[in-house]
């Protein structure tokens, strides 16, 4: 028997289970559960929307885009699908379209906290902090006990340098839900900003015990480690910057750096300074080797950290 959305009770249950797995950071399990659902019913719009979110969590943007598109074809008024597409567009750095989709989701479900938080994080990314704060305050008014909202408020105040407020919101979030992963990461970030890397590390590890693949917690732990080692820190800062660019621009940056090196090398040789050219070549080799071994060293360092608290090392 189907409800008004056309779902049977079994489908509803399985979707709820898949959604819970996604919220706990198990995107791979969500993908397999939804795959089973879609094998028997390929026209299950909510299945495609949830699959889009799970694929997005796995950074499979192209497939997520396709699935979100399918969901909207089947049900153009599904807020979850618009929200998923908004996040996908953010991942593709198509910010105006991301804003349109998230606003559409909000218009369809004005009481959906996730829509407020998504649009707020988009505005924070775009530097529109006042609008981001306004949305967070609306979300908090809708649900004063939402740890996710309080964690986001902490992140917002941290980004504008108001550490006391950031800490207060993180503490409130943790009092409501002591194991809320985003709140743990928010508190850890505040502690790091206050010059307490030990506290920051503890909160990052605590978050990772609940969700080993939580990107915010991994980022926080990596930032703490980067401050301990100048060499790894340099690589981490470079990697964080380059990752934000997207793959196309990353390639352009690499090619630009290579061309700059080759032009400099040719020019120095043309000027007759073979020694300087050799120094330049060794410096380039050192940079290449450094960027080559940096990721491996960093991951090993993180894996040792996580081994010490008996966590999964695959991430």
């Amino acid at each position, binding site marked *: 028997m189907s409800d008004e959305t056309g779902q049977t009770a079994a489908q509803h249950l399985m979707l709820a289970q898949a959604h819970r797995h996604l919220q706990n950071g198990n995107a791979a399990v969500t993908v397999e559960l939804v795959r*089973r659902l*879609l*094998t028997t019913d390929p026209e299950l719009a909510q299945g495609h929307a949830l699959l889009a979110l799970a694929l997005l969590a796995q950074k*499979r943007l192209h497939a997520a885009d396709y699935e979100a598109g399918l969901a909207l074809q089947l049900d153009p008024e599904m807020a979850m699908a618009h929200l998923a597409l908004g996040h996908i567009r953010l991942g593709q750095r198509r910010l105006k379209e991301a804003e349109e989709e998230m606003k559409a989701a909000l218009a369809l479900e004005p009481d959906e906290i996730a829509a407020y938080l998504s649009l707020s994080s988009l505005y924070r990314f775009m530097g529109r902090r006042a609008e981001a704060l306004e949305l967070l305050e609306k979300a908090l008014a809708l649900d004063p006990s939402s740890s996710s909202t309080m964690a986001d408020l902490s992140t917002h105040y941290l980004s504008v340098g108001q550490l006391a407020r950031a800490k207060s919101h993180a503490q409130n979030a943790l009092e409501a839900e002591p194991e809320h992963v985003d709140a743990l990461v928010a508190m850890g970030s505040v502690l790091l900003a206050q010059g307490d890397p030990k506290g920051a590390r503890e909160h990052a590890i605590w978050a990772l015990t609940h969700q080993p693949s939580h990107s915010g917690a991994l980022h926080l732990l990596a930032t703490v480690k980067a401050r301990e080692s100048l060499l790894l820190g340099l690589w981490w800062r470079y990697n964080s910057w380059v990752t934000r660019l997207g793959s196309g621009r990353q*390639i352009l940056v690499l*090619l630009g750096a290579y061309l700059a090196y080759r*032009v400099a090398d*040719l020019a120095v040789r043309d000027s007759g300074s073979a020694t300087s050219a050799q120094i330049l070549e060794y410096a380039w080799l050192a940079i290449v080797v450094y960027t080559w071994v940096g990721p491996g060293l960093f991951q090993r360092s993180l894996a040792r950290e996580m081994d010490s608290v008996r966590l999964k090392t695959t991430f």
Partner: protein
Amino acid sequence: MGRVGTYQIPDEPTPGPFARFSVQPFWPLLATMLGGVWIGWPWFVLNGWLIGSATRRRELALVVGGFVVSAAFIVGLLALSESVIPVKALPYVALLGVAWKLGVSYRVQVDQERSFSLYRYFGGSSMSGMLPVAAGLLLRASVIGLFPKQPEELRVFLIWVLL
């Protein structure tokens, strides 16, 4: 892979019967850098088909386009080298062609890496590409030796396009 009869997600690879001979896309990239595009680019195409890469047609188009633009570039460079481009500037201009080949190689590697990661995630096996890379590096000089010595322009054209 055990995915027959289940819902297929668009970016998932559809490996063929010889997928076990595939390699991580890093190896064809390294072969391109050390041996030349004559080994690296066809290897990319082959690897894509072996793992059933979701973007194998785009990878093929990139490689074909890569060869076509490389050929056009060297033809243009040879035609303009004495009249428009000063001899001293030639090495600098030639760098653009090198950058083009590297750019195509990186792009194909990034695209293929996504499908390869999924292929491995679903239990696919692959082999090391060290031997073909070493072979490419060692055979590079022999490949140049195969090209006719005259006319000089043809030799330069072939060396440029294939290495």
